């Protein structure tokens, strides 16, 4: 069986696009071949910065002949219908067969498609692939109309079998396929012909090209670690940088250099980020001191001076880069040691969002909320407020201006330099976290308070200005902020009522950056975080303040919870997504969301976990069926009779043993469930609920609810009502599937 080799040789393909391009090339070509009737044993795609290569092994040489029969219109059908059939089949009337049919005689077309030779199919599939290749960004060049990621120079397309190799005839936009390619741009630029995939890879290697990116990665890592080891150092692992660098070179040559002593005092993250982002250098660490003392650069060429000139040049560029970093660091330290006042002032003139004010205004709001959250997470309110006020100061530092990805981390260094408490420094570093579904959740109480306040301020702010995420659009990353709130609360077992915090922060947004009677407002909002906007204490404060009649009080007094409800629903939606990823059933979440206290996310999840565990038991699963049966009968009767059977059932009207046993079981269960629910011991409550399964099932088997005796019937309906009440006190079982 023949093997197929394709190489698309172009100008330099961006490193970040190569992995997907390999997958796309393999998928598009093999799908195309298979659709056209060929089969193959194995296909692999490879890439360098200048070429995309596909090797297909064990391809069939021909597609099989296909015979297709199609039934057409009756021979008596109108001419129009017959003409239509001829057009559709591409045949003439005398090529059609007439055959007897149930309803008479009909035309049949018999279409014989002969097998096609592989080269013909390959040429078609490859041209279609090239013309429709899904590059993230593509371009035209010269006077042509073809689009590719960068100018495409040549196509190698070779079919080989025992008899030899043949070029697949193919021309795309003036580029004719051949059996030749080029080696390394500088080391082996001459073109050469190849006769098979093995010949191709071997000749490429002689021409200073390692075709396989995995092999280049391995070579780089091997040489880098060896060079570092020989100097008593170690390379800092950086898999994504390794992949990127391997996508920038065809012939990797590892060179190691030392960082000038003048820069060794910079924080390791600064050295690493500067070298990585600007120069694509690996960091090299001294295992004894833990400091980053060297770098690895990967050149794409060998030189007569063994890379001395290249290393010298790179070292010079690095020196200029690190001089900038050192300049930033030293200037920043001066500002930090002076208390960061310069940065905090500066944040007044930085707009966060034109409808949400400046960064300084945002920080004031976050600090107020962090202070209120502090007691709920076990943090000192003063410390939380101070941390929130300083956590974003580093946004004005020169270092973060240069490397935005160091925000927070630099804040930690500068807070330490300013002699601030360690909890404040850590909050600066950690308050942006968590940033996704899997990264670490802060646990230090001050950090938790600031992180929660930061995210809630963002959510409430964008809700207040009606910039909610819609569909796939979430330009302010509000879904991520909501997930952050959820993970902070759950990860730290925090008990708080999210709707109160939301109410309060929405009011802070609505009362603007310079509210009148700030102290009074603060007092009202702080009270509301503990007792709710509609709590007695809060209302009393508002009523008392109303005698002073400040206009600003009106929105506080008439606070409308609609926005908070909408945001709470959004948080619940995100919680469902989060819990689903952790294999919590969606109907279980719904059953718990329908219960009171659903603004306490920790409680909500505890309830859901207990319910899911109970449903996993046989009793639990069957109880739900029993409950639903009871509930359905009761609901129908209530609708029919127009009454609610909540008078309480009396055991003296019980007629069967099973009925009496159910009374006893309900008494026992109630006795356990009530105190368990009061202490939020959902597991005990639900286990106890599950014990009702047997008595309920027995009751239904032995007893007819709708008996002639109306007294007995009503008593039984009232008994069903007890079942409903007890079960619904644990979770809304009506929301469960099945």
């Amino acid at each position, binding site marked *: 069986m023949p093997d197929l080799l394709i190489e698309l040789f172009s100008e330099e393909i961006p490193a970040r696009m190569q992995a997907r391009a390999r997958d796309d090339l393999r998928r598009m070509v093999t799908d195309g071949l298979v659709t056209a009737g060929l089969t193959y044993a194995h296909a692999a795609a490879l890439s360098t910065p200048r070429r995309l290569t596909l090797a297909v092994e064990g391809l069939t040489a021909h597609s099989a002949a296909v015979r297709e029969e199609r039934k057409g219109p009756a021979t008596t059908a109108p001419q129009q219908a017959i003409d239509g059939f001829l057009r559709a089949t591409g045949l003439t009337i005398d090529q059609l067969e007439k055959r007897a049919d149930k309803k008479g005689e009909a035309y049949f077309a018999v279409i014989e498609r002969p097998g096609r030779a592989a080269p013909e199919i390959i040429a078609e599939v490859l041209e279609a692939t090239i013309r429709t290749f899904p590059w993230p960004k593509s371009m*035209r060049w010269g*006077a042509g109309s073809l689009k590719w990621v960068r100018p495409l120079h040549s196509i190698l397309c070779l079919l080989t079998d025992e008899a030899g190799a043949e070029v697949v005839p193919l021309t795309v936009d003036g580029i004719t396929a051949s059996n030749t390619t080029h080696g390394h741009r500088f080391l082996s630029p001459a073109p050469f012909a190849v006769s098979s995939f093995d010949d191709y890879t071997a000749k490429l290697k002689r021409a200073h090209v390692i075709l396989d990116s995995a092999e280049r990665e391995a070579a780089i890592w091997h040489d880098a670690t060896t060079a570092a080891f020989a100097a008593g150092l170690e390379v800092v692992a950086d898999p994504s940088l390794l992949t990127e660098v391997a996508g920038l070179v065809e012939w990797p040559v590892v060179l190691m250099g030392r960082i000038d002593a003048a820069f060794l005092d910079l924080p390791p993250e600064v050295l690493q980020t500067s070298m990585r982002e600007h120069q694509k250098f690996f960091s090299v660490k001294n295992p004894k001191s833990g400091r980053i003392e060297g770098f690895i650069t990967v050149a794409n060429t060998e030189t007569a001076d063994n890379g001395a000139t290249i290393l010298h040049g790179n070292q010079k560029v690095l020196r200029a880069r690190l001089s900038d970093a050192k300049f930033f660091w030293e200037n920043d330290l001066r500002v930090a040691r002076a208390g960061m006042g310069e940065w905090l002032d500066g944040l007044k003139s930085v*707009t966060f969002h034109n409808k949400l004010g400046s960064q300084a205004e945002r920080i004031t709001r976050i600090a107020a909320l962090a202070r209120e959250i502090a007691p709920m997470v076990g943090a000192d309110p003063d410390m939380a407020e101070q941390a929130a006020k300083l956590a974003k100061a580093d946004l004005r530092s020169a270092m973060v201006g240069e490397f935005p990805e160091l925000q927070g981390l630099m804040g930690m260094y500068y807070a330490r330099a300013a002699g601030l408490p360690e909890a404040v420094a850590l909050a600066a570093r950690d308050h942006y976290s968590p940033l996704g579904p899997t990264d670490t959740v802060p646990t230090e109480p001050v950090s938790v308070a600031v992180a929660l306040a930061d995210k809630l301020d963002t959510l409430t702010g964008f809700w207040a200005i009606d910039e909610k995420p819609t569909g796939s659009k979430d330009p302010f990353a509000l879904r991520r902020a909501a997930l952050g709130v959820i993970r902070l609360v759950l990860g730290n077992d925090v008990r708080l009522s999210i709707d109160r915090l939301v109410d309060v922060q929405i009011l802070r947004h609505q009362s603007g950056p310079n509210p009148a009677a700030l102290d009074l407002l603060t007092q009202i909002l702080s009270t509301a975080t503990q007792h709710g906007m509609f709590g007695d204490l809060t209302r009393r404060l508002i009523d008392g303040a109303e005698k002073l009649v400040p206009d600003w009080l009106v929105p506080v007094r008439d606070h409308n919870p609609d926005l908070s409800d909408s945001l709470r629903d959004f948080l619940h939606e995100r919680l469902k997504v989060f819990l689903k990823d952790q294999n919590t059933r969606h109907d279980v979440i719904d059953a718990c969301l329908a219960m009171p206290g659903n603004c306490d996310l920790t409680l909500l999840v505890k309830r859901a976990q207990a319910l899911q565990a109970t449903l996993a038991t046989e009793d639990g699963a069957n109880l739900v069926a029993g409950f639903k049966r009871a509930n359905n009968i009761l609901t129908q009767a209530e609708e029919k009779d127009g009454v609610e059977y909540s008078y309480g059932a009396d055991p003296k009207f019980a007629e069967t043993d099973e009925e009496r046993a159910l009374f006893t079981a309900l008494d026992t269960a109630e006795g356990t469930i009530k105190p368990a629910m009061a202490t939020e011991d959902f597991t005990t409550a639900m286990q106890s609920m599950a014990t009702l399964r047997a008595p309920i099932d027995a009751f239904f088997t032995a007893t007819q609810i709708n008996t002639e005796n109306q007294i007995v019937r009503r008593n039984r309906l009232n008994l069903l009502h007890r079942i409903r009440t007890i079960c619904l006190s644990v979770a809304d079982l009506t929301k469960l599937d099945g």
Partner: protein
Amino acid sequence: MSDVTTRPRSFQEIILRLQSYWATKGCAILQPYDMEVGAGTFHPATTLRSLGTKPWAAAYVQPSRRPTDGRYGENPNRLQHYYQYQVIIKPSPPDMQELYLGSLRAIGLDPALHDIRFVEDDWESPTLGAWGLGWEIWCDGMEVSQFTYFQQVGGHDCRPVSGELTYGLERLAMYVLGIDHVMDMPFNDPQSPIPLTYGDIFRQTEEEYSRHNFDGANTDMLLQHFVNAEAECQRLLDFPAQDPNSGKRIIMAHPAYDQCIKASHLFNLLDARGVISVTERQAYIGRVRALAKLCADAFRLTEAGADLDTVGTAA
């Protein structure tokens, strides 16, 4: 191609070698445009000439001004006035990369000794309504040029595509000459009777213009000039094509484009003076882009910018 392997000795020698190299490759060696621009791309020889189907090949030095980059002549690498070397060829030849590498050899950067890399860099000019794909070119980890295949300019698709090269001359020359501070770079040959450094020529002007850009420029006047340039650009394009004096069809695309260039530079100055807020910024950029598009539209109606669909492609 004869490689020039000797190392150049001065800033001007590097410029001269680039000029003579691209002259031998068939480019028209143009002179700088006589207006303040932020980059060589603004020269009409690039922006306007990249439109339409007429073949084009030009190379030139363009003094460029970036008012916010002023550092009073103290920063080793940053200047508010510097030089770019610009090459534009339409349609981009298939060996454009090789031609470029030849220019590096010409100024003494031998790829056999250095590590030359083409690193992804997409180019976009929001003020010109232009974008293209290409690379920044690294020499031993240092960015020495930009290489772009223009896809769109002034909102018009580039057909055929122009290949554009931009060399930041000071940075490139500092690297070739082994200089750490731009002001120390020999401008003419150090063996000359009167050797001059870059600093001898530009230190004082960097100081003066830095002060001007950050504190001196009259912002009220600049704002007014911006409005004037904007209005004048539109007014010039509103003239009927038929010129009553000459009886010819004359569209004033270039004079209008001059006003667009002016508006762009005035915006840069206002930006340096810190009087444009973040939100206003986008609006100003949008206004300049609107002018650039109008000029591109007008240029496409002129002889130099038209499509030669019927000419030269006779079946």
